[in-house]
């Protein structure tokens, strides 16, 4: 009836897929108790932005993926950047809603994808189990989105902003229907499991432990409405870390089995190279932060701050705010590059140097 299978290994799954949601909740509760809200921005920089970088390595850095999806990898960014720019100009609220809605869909699909991996690795479930699983994820997540006070406030507000007024009775009715749908579907899902067993196919209990852990995180933090910080931190830690682990594992296994041609990705996997993969992820976050003109202090969880530029009253120089500080930093870069150019030229162009003479 049961057949266990793991994505990575028993121990690694216990850490990254089964234990991480609980650890992320504990971390978020700690953040809520002891850290300011800016810690959410720090989590973004330490986890979310590097998890984007992992996507770029996995897509643009693997030759097979690039060749197979070349059109989508070129057309996608052009279309998305263009439509984002258009949204910012003509429909900013819609753009925010779209980003938010896609984020939710993406979160559902990641957990669904990992559930699928569990069945794939264990050889469990029926051919149509994936459809039942997908519906389970949508119904459980959708119920949370409708029911949790934090999200309830958001969708009621956005409907009003779109001039779609709704009554409290309508909301109450919707919430009741949502619970009924969950209850009915859970029964339906158990019938599917019974059919699975009757057909002689096994069930992977680890998959359900994983789904349970994921929804524990989402439901627990979504009902903690005293602070969005809790949801933001816990969700992003789970989503980002699991994604990075998955990408790196996939690349490592591809390298070990020789199933992919070498590329950028293969330089980042292998013995002792994990740190370079992570360092590059951190570097990507730094570059991204500078590109969007946000302070590097956001890396510091509101605890570590780089010294801002203080006033120097002796020279009548006022203190600089962050915009001013960034301008000063840009100016320093221009000067520093120029100085480096002066310095390097001072020793690579000696005409008396035999090596230089050979190139002249």
């Amino acid at each position, binding site marked *: 009836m049961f057949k266990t299978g793991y994505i990575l290994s028993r121990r690694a799954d216990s850490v990254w897929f089964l234990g991480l949601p609980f650890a992320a909740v504990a971390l978020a509760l700690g953040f809520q108790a002891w850290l300011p809200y800016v810690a959410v921005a720090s989590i973004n920089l330490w986890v979310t932005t590097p998890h984007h970088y992992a996507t770029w390595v996995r897509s643009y850095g693997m030759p097979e993926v690039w060749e197979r999806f070349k059109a989508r990898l070129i057309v996608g960014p052009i279309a998305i950047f263009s439509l984002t720019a258009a*949204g910012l100009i003509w429909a900013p*609220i819609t753009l925010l809603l*779209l980003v938010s809605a896609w984020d939710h*869909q993406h979160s559902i699909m990641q957990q669904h994808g990992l559930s699928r991996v569990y069945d794939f690795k264990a050889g469990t479930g029926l051919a149509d189990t994936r459809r039942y699983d997908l519906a389970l994820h949508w119904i459980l997540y959708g119920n949370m989105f409708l029911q949790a006070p934090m999200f309830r406030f958001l969708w009621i507000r956005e409907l009003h902003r779109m001039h779609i007024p709704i*009554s409290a009775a309508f909301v109450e009715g919707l919430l009741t229907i949502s619970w009924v749908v969950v209850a009915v579907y859970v029964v339906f899902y158990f019938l599917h499991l019974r059919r699975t067993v009757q057909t002689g196919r096994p069930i992977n209990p680890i998959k359900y432990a994983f789904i349970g852990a994921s929804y524990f995180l989402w439901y627990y933090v979504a009902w903690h409405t005293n602070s969005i910080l809790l949801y933001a931190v816990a969700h992003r830690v789970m989503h980002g870390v699991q994604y990075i682990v998955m990408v790196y594992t996939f690349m490592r296994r591809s390298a070990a089995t020789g199933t992919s041609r070498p590329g950028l990705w293969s330089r980042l996997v292998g013995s002792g190279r994990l740190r370079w993969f992570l360092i590059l992820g951190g570097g990507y976050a730094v570059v991204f932060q500078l590109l969007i003109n946000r302070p590097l*202090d956001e890396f510091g969880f509101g605890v570590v701050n780089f010294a801002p530029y203080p006033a120097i009253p002796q020279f009548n120089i006022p203190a600089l705010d962050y915009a001013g500080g960034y301008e000063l930093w840009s100016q320093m870069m221009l000067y520093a590059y120029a100085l480096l150019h002066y310095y390097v030229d001072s020793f690579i162009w000696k005409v008396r140097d035999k090596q230089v003479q050979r190139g002249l």
Partner: protein
Amino acid sequence: MGRRRASEGTKTPWLQATARASKGQRKLPSYNNIFRRPSHARIVFHRYRLLFVIYGVGMVVGLREFYLARRSEPVDWFSDQWAAMTEIVAEVNPGDPDTDFLEGVQSMVHGDGPGLISHFEEALSADVKHNEFLLRDYAQHLLDMGGDWRQVNAAVNRWRENHPFSDETLILPLGTGPRNRSEASLLLRDLRRVAWIGNAELKRHQAGWRAHLSFRPAQRVDVREAVAAVSILAVPESDRYTVTVTCRTLTDCTASRKRGR
């Protein structure tokens, strides 16, 4: 030639292929190749279906927003829709900090100062950190009402600790404000010398001048220092470069000679 093309256009793909095959032009293709082979448009749609679906829905919503933005007033804190939304949220999310905040905003809209403070303090008692409007507006309201300097400082610091990189400013009322450009530059100079002030701008409003103060992160805020800086205008013009103003509270300030002069 033209007639043949026209007649082909009326036939089904299967009949066209059969006709060509009977003339020895091409091998007869299978039924599946003709009817099950997806068209180019279908391939493109299938390949980009996620983008089509998401941006299709986005376009519909966006067009509505575009239309509403040009035909009606925005739904902001002062609109009827916002008040209606607050009522519904209060009914379905009672006791939630964000609900308290929304009710506080309605109190503000109706000029109910005590109601605003009561709702905001209820929300803040839940240790809310995410709602910058709540944190900022509470601090600003305390300052506007001439609250105790310790409370004002605590509220401003709470706001800035949680949102240190926010561009939102604290507004300091100046009353009559600077009378000329020289006084304005003196005022700005003294404000910018305060350690926690990142920048200061002077703006004229109906009720007089106001200083809009932006912040430097990681600096403990003491609003009395800003009040002391703007109080320089109350000092006789001849003494302005030789005295220092310090404030014990937000209203009790004294000028004393600078040391070493």
